[in-house]
């Protein structure tokens, strides 16, 4: 398969970024919007063409999807250990190309309406393109180090976009928080990469993932504190993934990241960047699965399941619709992690892996749709809070219908996309791990409840006293909604199990009717309960909240995770550890360095006489130096 044109997919957004970034002030906003959209359109077309080529034309040899790699050595350390730059085409990277390009294109189009009249319009599109470029680079990476470089780049673009409204202190704080928390997790990632490179001698994904390769077979050769060093490396790498994908306990940045413009939340904090952690685990799945009999993979499963449950509970109590969606995202990401964690390897055993990727795909579509729908609502009523909304279905019919479709999809109602992928996840959990299956089914119920809570809260119930009569958003905003709604309806019918499996050979997936029935019933219960509570104005919800009493309060305060972090950092780290160190740094370290600096300057002052300006002095030094050298090496250094 010819993959040379694929390099254009990331290059185009990079070019757009440079163009818009450099000529920021000179480009009219109207033009910069078009530049952004058409640039992305071009790379989206290429991505879809690549997917078509790969999945349907010539990606398969003997029924197995092949890996195509095109790379050059960038930095050479040893024969095997080098950092490459290149692109790697395999089922998951092609799928991610499609996800990133479709969602990013929709968000670009949407932003032309949403950001209209904003001062930094051009800058916004430049940042969006930078992000898209980085994300493409991340999914196409051929080795751990390259993925790390782009990993940090998406982090930076996420930081820039969260802090886009930089005059708002809360946005600046949120941007910093997101950057610091994920950076902290990335430290684990980096250490993991270095350990991996040191003990396996390679960064290359293909070499690492080879089940018959030395990296996997020799996992037991070195151990540290009872675990294989490779397991430690994988766990550290997973910490990086958990940071980006907002897994417990690194999730605290994601709700705050909602300070960014809503299209950004849809693109980065729902559909693409936050799934990077899932993608990373999937990328190294053979290692996770084989090394130490899947010890690290078990951790992944539990972290995923607990995050899913934890976030779903919090989501029920939030009143800011974007925060509900943020916690919902975290919960669904937990679902995907969990699915990876319970996956096997060969054939149908690997259903969890397939289901995770499937859910990643469908979730990207319907969650982006939910965010863009929420953006449309916020655009109309100028508030993020449920209390300011109600009865909007009359004013915003398209937003209403598309939001409903997305809500049904995430609640797992057939035939919408979420039903199919969620069903596969539950099948995988049921077959491999009963406890996780029960958590999963409970979360499915909670999901249906919280999503319909906000759906009914926004679009049903009584009208609020709106300052301006809300009206439907312009076509540039509703068009992406319609496209994504269509994807949320038909996305589930894609036979993922033929395209994306661990062994790349594909298998036949069947709907498991008993499990599907249970899941759908639980979801229906959630929807009906939400309907009873929130469809009409009543005080049922408050009553129930009172019954749960303190537990409700905990959940609505997000189980005090932020406070715990603040306590640890401010009270313990800053006071007890940082301050003494800072003192030592100022007094001893700085003092020494300043002393050395002063001595250097003094030395410089003292020797200035040597450069007298007289040629005879120079000649004397020349000859003298030569003679000294000759004496030293003839008489003193004889060996």
């Amino acid at each position: 398969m010819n993959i040379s044109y694929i390099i254009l997919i990331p290059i185009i957004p990079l070019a757009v970024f440079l163009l818009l970034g450099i000529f920021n002030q000179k480009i009219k906003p109207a033009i910069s919007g078009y530049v952004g959209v058409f640039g992305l359109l071009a790379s989206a077309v290429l991505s879809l063409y690549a997917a078509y080529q790969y999945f349907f034309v010539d990606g398969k040899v003997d029924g197995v999807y092949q890996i195509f790699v095109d790379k050059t050595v960038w930095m050479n350390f040893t024969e095997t250990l080098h950092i490459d730059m290149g692109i790697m085409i395999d089922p998951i990277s092609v799928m991610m190309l499609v996800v990133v390009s479709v969602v990013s294109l929709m968000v670009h189009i949407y932003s032309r309406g949403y950001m209209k009249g904003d001062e930094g319009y051009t800058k916004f599109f430049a940042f969006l393109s930078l992000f898209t470029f980085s994300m493409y680079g991340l999914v196409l990476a051929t080795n751990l180090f390259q993925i790390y470089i782009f990993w940090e780049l998406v982090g930076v673009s996420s930081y820039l976009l969260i802090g886009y409204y930089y005059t708002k202190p809360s946005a600046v704080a949120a941007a910093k928080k997101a950057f610091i928390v994920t950076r902290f997790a990335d430290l684990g990632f980096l250490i993991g990469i270095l350990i991996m490179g040191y003990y396996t001698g390679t960064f290359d994904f293909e070499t690492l993932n080879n089940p018959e390769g030395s990296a996997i077979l020799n996992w037991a050769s070195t151990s540290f504190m009872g675990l294989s060093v490779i397991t430690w490396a994988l766990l550290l790498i997973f910490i990086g993934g958990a940071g980006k994908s907002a897994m417990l306990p690194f999730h605290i940045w994601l709700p705050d990241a909602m300070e960014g413009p809503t299209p950004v939340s849809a693109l980065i904090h729902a559909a693409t960047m936050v799934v990077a952690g899932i993608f990373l685990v999937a990328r190294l799945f053979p290692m996770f699965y084989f090394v130490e009999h899947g010890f690290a993979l078990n951790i992944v499963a539990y972290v995923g399941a607990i995050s899913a449950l934890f976030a779903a509970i919090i989501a029920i109590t939030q009143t800011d619709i974007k925060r509900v969606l943020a916690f919902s995202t975290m919960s669904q990401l937990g679902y995907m992690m969990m699915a990876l964690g319970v996956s096997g390897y060969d054939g149908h055993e690997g259903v969890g892996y397939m289901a995770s990727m499937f859910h990643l795909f469908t979730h990207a579509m319907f969650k982006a749709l939910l965010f863009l729908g929420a953006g449309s609502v916020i655009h109309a009523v100028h508030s993020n809070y449920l209390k300011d909304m109600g009865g909007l279905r009359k004013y915003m019919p398209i937003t209403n219908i598309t939001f409903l479709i997305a809500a049904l999809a995430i609640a797992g109602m057939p035939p919408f996309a979420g039903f199919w992928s969620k069903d596969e996840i539950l099948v995988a959990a049921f077959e491999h791990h009963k406890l996780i299956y029960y958590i999963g089914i409970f979360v499915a119920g909670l999901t249906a409840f919280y999503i319909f809570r906000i759906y009914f809260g926004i679009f049903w119930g009584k009208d609020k006293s709106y300052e301006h009569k809300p009206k439907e958003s312009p076509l540039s905003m509703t068009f992406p909604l319609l496209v994504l709604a269509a994807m949320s309806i038909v996305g589930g019918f894609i036979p993922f199990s033929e395209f994306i499996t661990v062994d790349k050979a594909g298998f036949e997936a069947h709907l498991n009717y008993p499990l599907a029935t249970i899941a759908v019933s639980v979801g229906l219960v959630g929807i009906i309960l939400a309907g009873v509570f929130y469809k009409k104005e009543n005080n049922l919800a408050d009553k129930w909240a009172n019954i749960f009493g303190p537990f409700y309060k905990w959940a609505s305060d997000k189980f005090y995770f932020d406070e715990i972090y603040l306590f640890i950092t401010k009270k313990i780290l800053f006071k007890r550890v940082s301050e003494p160190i800072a003192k030592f740094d100022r007094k001893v370290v700085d003092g020494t360095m300043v002393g050395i600096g002063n001595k250097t300057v003094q030395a410089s002052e003292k020797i200035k006489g040597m450069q007298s300006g007289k040629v005879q002095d120079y000649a004397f030094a020349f000859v003298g130096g030569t003679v000294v050298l000759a004496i030293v090496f003839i008489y003193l250094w004889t060996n």
Partner: protein
Amino acid sequence: MNIDSFLLMRHEIILLVVILLLIVAEVSISPRKKNSIVHLAIFLFGIHTIAGFLTIEESSLFGGMFRTNGMIHFFKNVLNIGVLVLLLQSGDWLQEKIVQENKGTEFFILLFSSLLGMYFMISAGDFLMFYLGLELSVLPVAALAAYETAKRKSSEAGIKLILSSALASGVSLFGISMLYATTGSIYFADIIEVITASNLSILGLVLFFAGLGFKISLVPFHFWTADVYEGAPISIASYLSVISKGAAVFILMIILFTVLKPLMHIWENMLYGIAIATMFIGNLFALRQQNMKRFLAFSSIAQAGFILLGLIIGNQLGTATVVYFVLVYVFSNLAAFGVVQAISLKTGKENISDYEGLYRTNPKLSLVMMLALFSLAGIPPVAGFFGKFFLFIAAASEGYYLLVFIAVVNVTIALYYYLLVVRAMFLRKTDNAIPFFKSKIYMRLGLIITVIGILALGIYSPLYEYIYELSAIFN
């Protein structure tokens, strides 16, 4: 001998033809149109540079006196690119000179003659050819250093250069004669077979080395550097610090790594001490300089100290890192000198304090300067970082940890004074900053090429791989 073997000397022949053509042009072009000779010279040299990239076979001529191979060919191309950039940067200045003083052609003829000398020096297969090349490369530059006859300092620079270089050549020739005395031959190929460490051969090595140490400005042979750079026209200071130094490093490397390899246990210790002295002396003097040309002179002395780190390990890795470092250094230093030249040409100002507030009035020029200084200081991701990084890794790989540590200390000192200039340009506010001006096309082209070089060399890794492969001949 037939025409094919003559073509092995393609670089030399074409350059000679260019020189002759320029002499003809000087005579035949009417005085009023004299300044078109600048275009002609740049055009001809551009063709010469491009022609240089055609591949060449490994071979030798004149019974082994002249030889060429992939590496030597590459060296010549590096020098060509450097000189081309230099010509572009001095094009405007020369046009002005021609209009005002009706002289200019000799600048090109002398410069190209010196370059021709370097070609012969690098391609030398015996010490005679080497010596002839060395002399041919120095003498015209002494004339060029005194080119601005109206300025007293320029004449002083010329005198100092000619006196110092006469001494250096004499010492070097004395050393060569001793090597001849111990080995009975002046041919490199013969010497390497028979040379052993004896008192006489070591004395020969030291004296020979002093001559080249003078050209590279190693301590204690460096004293002429600052005075000559300060007095000479900027183009010539730039030529001395970049082209002349680069060529001398190349030939020193060739001779140490091949001819004098049996004496490696001597010269590696010699280089060790000189490297430390050169880095410290260069840096400590650079700290206090107020004049940009003197500042860059001492900075280039310190850079020469770093180069010795790669020379000291004497193998393929050392060669590759040194060549890469020199290549990066060529672009970085040309960029720095280019900016100094551009400013000096428009305003006549050459002091660091004159650069205060430059960023506000001439942002692009300041950015070029910043990039150049960052590259010289070795800040990632510009090329200079990789140049130093590879050098240090190479030295460390042979166990020279203490030397690398000392070099790192010196990088820190150097960073301080490079940042002094950056601070003056970007952070200092002043009312009488140099007003905005726009350089002419040649100067801008010259600066753009250096910027591309500084950025691209750091990112485009296959180049280093290529150099590494070429270096295999020094293993």
